[in-house]
């Protein structure tokens, strides 16, 4: 789709502008720099959102380079970043491949909900159950922002089953899920498509042509199916043209991705039928696909009235511009637009228009009355909700709601204080435990792994000789008399020489002079002991003796 945008933009530049993309001098607005500051502010916009926000379009090479950096994932595939974060995508139902994300880390589980549709006519349904078990939800579906719907007093919410349930305070996930998945919305969408098709049909019957510059792939695919069905059922022989540089590839692609489609489409795979009807229709030459409006095949095949699907919805770029100019004075022809920001502005260059215009809005997110039950099903501890939607709906399902708005950083309170560590039991059973006054302690062993957001302590691949257990940390102070006894048990004899400097201190500090079996010195002080000997064996025996009289780990 980005390539298509680049190619139609290129075409536009061939007609109207410099072909060389590097010479976009004018876009730096050097002329504006010399304007007085007040004027400049008006021209650039307060936050540079007017002329100041203009940017050159990326190139085909940029698209390729960018896509090379993208790691693709399947739905519910785990991508582990740095061993710490497990990132997963779940279908959102809006379009083929659209998704919501979950990020699981050692300290918090986050779900991000974008515009989602519960039951889709083509793409895999909104998998909201996959988003369960996350303590923080970022709600980011702004599709209802421009609607006039309002949910402030919950009066419009008239599902008696669910509301009585809410008062019972009974949490019944299955029931909520069933009510969310009631496919009244998708029925409504299908009806809309049927209505569009009948309008189109009326136009072609009257001898006019139909122009559809809608860019939503799923809607285009469904319209293709329904429209050709309708045309087939009549005696009218009206061709359907698709004009786009990427249409052929896109149509071929939509037929090899059963894993990304809704249940009904997947059933087609299992019964050996093509996933979308356009495969058959292209073969039967009912749908014709052309890369550009000036393709030779198009010119030789062209036949009116006809139905044309082509970009771009802005009506400023692509084949639609030519066709709109051609048909705008024909009162029998029909233009089908998705209602957007300002249709008036979009149609301005083509006025006065005799052509009929049909504006339709399609479902493009979670409807307001489904937000509350959805959050009830997901049970987040913490909810981040857009400030802009606050006046539309009152949320009561989350423990804490924090409202967010653009360009504002929020700090979330931490949910878990300490990090958990998972110790393999086969390793733990080899630990050398030591009982102190209140607690049992042991030094850890093995190797610590950070994997799938979990700290795991596993037995490492160590050589056998390092298995020898030696306390590395000691505390307290040794009793010299006991030390001498322990030494003599080992067959080591020595005499105690009181150290004059520390004679006054209570703790026994001093030097033990060993002469059997070898010469050695043990210099015991308050904070440490030094073993001085030339014999490895003796050194280790003395260490053992000190270890016995001291506490160590």
């Amino acid at each position: 789709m980005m390539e298509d945008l680049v190619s139609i933009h290129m075409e536009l530049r061939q007609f109207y502008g410099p072909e060389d993309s590097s010479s976009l001098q004018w876009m730096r607005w050097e002329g504006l720099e010399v304007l007085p500051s007040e004027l400049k502010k008006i021209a650039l916009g307060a936050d540079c959102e007017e002329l100041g926000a203009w940017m050159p379009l990326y190139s085909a090479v940029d698209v390729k380079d960018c896509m090379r950096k993208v790691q693709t994932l399947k739905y519910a595939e785990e991508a582990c970043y740095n061993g710490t974060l497990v990132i997963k995508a779940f279908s959102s139902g809006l379009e083929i491949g659209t998704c919501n994300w979950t990020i699981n880390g050692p300290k918090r589980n986050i779900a991000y909900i974008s515009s989602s549709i519960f039951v889709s006519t083509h793409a895999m349904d909104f998998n909201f159950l996959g988003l369960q078990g996350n303590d923080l939800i970022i709600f980011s579906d702004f599709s209802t922002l421009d609607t006039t719907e309002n949910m402030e007093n919950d009066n419009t919410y008239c599902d008696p089953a669910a509301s009585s349930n809410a008062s019972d305070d009974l949490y019944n996930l299955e029931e909520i899920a069933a009510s969310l998945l009631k496919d009244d919305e998708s029925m409504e969408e299908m009806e809309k498509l049927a209505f569009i098709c009948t309008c189109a049909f009326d136009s072609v019957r009257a001898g006019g042509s139909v122009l559809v510059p809608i860019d939503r792939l799923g809607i285009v695919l469904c319209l293709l199916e329904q429209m050709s069905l309708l045309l087939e059922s009549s005696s009218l022989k009206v061709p359907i043209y698709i004009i786009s540089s990427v249409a052929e590839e896109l149509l071929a692609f939509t037929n090899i991705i059963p894993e990304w489609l809704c249940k009904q489409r997947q059933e087609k795979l299992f019964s050996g039928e093509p996933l979308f009807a356009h495969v058959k229709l292209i073969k039967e030459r009912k749908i014709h696909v052309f890369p550009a409006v000036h393709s030779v095949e198009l010119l030789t095949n062209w036949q009116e009235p006809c139905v044309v699907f082509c970009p771009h919805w802005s009506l400023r770029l692509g084949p639609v511009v030519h066709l709109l100019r051609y048909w705008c004075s024909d009162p029998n022809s029909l233009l089908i637009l998705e209602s957007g920001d300002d249709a008036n502005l979009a149609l301005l260059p083509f006025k006065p228009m005799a052509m009929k215009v049909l504006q339709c809005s399609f479902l493009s997110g979670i409807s307001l009355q489904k937000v509350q039950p959805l959050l009830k099903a997901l049970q987040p501890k913490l909810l981040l909700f857009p400030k802009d939607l606050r006046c539309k709906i009152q949320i009561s399902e989350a423990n804490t709601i924090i409202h967010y708005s653009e360009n504002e950083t929020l700090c979330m309170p931490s949910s878990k204080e300490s990090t958990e560590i998972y110790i393999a039991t086969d390793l733990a059973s080899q630990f050398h435990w030591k009982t102190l006054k209140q607690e049992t302690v042991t030094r850890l062993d093995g190797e610590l792994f950070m994997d799938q957001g979990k700290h795991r302590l596993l037995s490492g691949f160590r050589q056998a000789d390092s298995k020898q257990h030696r306390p590395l940390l000691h505390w307290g102070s040794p009793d010299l008399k006991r030390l001498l006894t322990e030494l003599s048990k080992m067959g080591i004899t020595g005499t105690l020489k009181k150290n004059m400097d520390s004679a006054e201190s209570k703790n026994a500090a001093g030097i033990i002079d060993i002469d059997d079996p070898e010469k050695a010195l043990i210099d015991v002080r308050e904070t440490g002991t030094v073993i001085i000997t030339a014999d490895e064996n003796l050194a280790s025996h003395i260490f053992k003796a000190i270890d016995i009289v001291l506490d160590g780990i």
Partner: protein
Amino acid sequence: MAIDCLVLGAGQEVGKSCMVVSINGKRIMFDCGMHMGYTDSRRYPDFSLISKNGDFDNALTCVIVTHFHLDHIGALPYFTEVCGYKGPIYMTYPTKALAPLMLEDYRKNMDRRGEDEQFTSDHIAECMKKVIPVDLKQTVQVDKDLQIRAYYAGHVIGAAMFYAKVGDAAMVYTGDYNMTPDRHLGAAQIDRLQLDLLITESTYATTIRDSRYGREREFLKAVHNCVAAGGKVLIPTFALGRAQELCILLEDYWERMNLKVPIYFSAGLTIQANMYYKMLINWTSQKIKETYATHNAFDFKNVRNFDRSLINAPGPCVLFATPGMIVGGFSLEVFMQWAPSENNLVTLPGYCVAGTIGHKLMSGKPTKIDLDKDTQINVRCQIHQLSFSPHTDAKGIMDLVKFLSPKHAILVHGEKPKMATLKERIQSELGIQCYCPANNETVTIPSTHYVKADASGTFIRSCLNPNFKFSTCSSTDKSYLDSNKSKAVSRLSVSDDRATEGILVVEKGKKAKVIHQDEFLHMLGEKKHEIQFAYCFPMHMARTEDLSSTSHMLCSFDKCTLISRLSMILSDELSEGNILDLGEELQVESFHVSVCSSDNCPHRLSSSLQNGSESVFFCCHWSVADEKLAWKIISIMKNSTL
């Protein structure tokens, strides 16, 4: 806790793959296949071993099928529709799409052989409705505790290895797989996983194969020679998999050689299958995938449907006929007609199950085959055995086992003596406990569990900083390609003692806690008592001329010279430890050594200076962690001369 594996099929044999694994209270059946070599009750796994009273829904959590070959899925409709299992069944999208074709084709052929039909067309359709399709790498939550995931296995389209995890225990069941890409599929791919158990196929437990291209050429030459001489080529295959692979191969060859000899598919089945293949092109190899928009590789130009009337039509042709291995049905019908002529050719796959005609043709060169007591077939045609196979070879199996490094491995789907050889190799070369159980045996292995503890921030932070120790150790490395030769190699080993700085504290009634050793004493309210070793001793000097007159008055420059000389000696002789030259001091881990100029050094045991000016005293101290290293350094120092 343990993992129990009950082998219901493919134990020490190939056929009716079926393994029931109990793992942390969940019970999963992997594959539900049939044996092509039997027509009696031995054809299906003995399901009564799963549940005496036939309540399979409670006895099993789910069934997972790896791919659509009959020896992996053939008993599934029987198990669900006749035995009554109603629980969830998982398989990949292509398997779900193509399995009914395989089953239906088999059922029809069995009809013709006049056997008891064990399941009907409706059974197949009802059975497939229970199947939940999965995508590769998609993590499926079967229930609260059981997670499964499919990985690409090559072998046939949609074939998958399955990973299953319950709590802390995890395992992989490979099904059949191929570690090298073929004409239409990629090689098996899997993540590095922490596994308690790997159950792997071992069809080619001892074979090592070279490149497949030479073998493909052999096949093409045999086919070309036969059709050039006007002969007919019979390729008995199952409807899916091998048929498409060979067809891509032939199609390509036909184009290149500009051949016009017709290629037929029997009964239109494979042509219908190609429709599925076209939609499932994402599951094929990268090379084929890339061409989907312009030309779908499964749009065969030279392929036609075969009609029974063409069997005795004159002229050469190539025919793909089902079922494979000439088990019966149409391929047998054609074989009976074509086998008596020496002009004709029959190609057989690398592996045929014992008991099939294919197996008989491959073992020796029979001139006559007795079909039953009344029918005898004269065999004069040429036989070509395909020597490329969609199964991994022994090297591939070893590579996979080594890569996954599971705690235990179980071999299935192979021949008993070869499996025993492979088992020995896995145990001796990889040090992994390995089993090859027979049918209806149960193998029990222990599984991993974890205990949870809270870790302090200090410990976690200290673990973020690497604390590597490098050492060279020599070990005997047995190369598994040639296990007789072993050579000693010296290699750098890296150890990291981060974890050992942690201390686990368990207090009654409180959650276990891991803290850093520095925090530990503070917690106890005690003071550290450090135990050190020290030793000050003389070292021989070779020449003292260039140093100042006596060792008593060494200036700092001379000390540095001595230390750097010592450093050189140590770095030559010491294989481990990181030697740091700090000017007047040398440090190896906690071992410190410096030139001692004090006659009254408390670390000296005898103050008498032997050999006077020819030696100089070095004072060393170290802590217990580096005890071994310290004594090694001291012995090096005592035995060398500066």
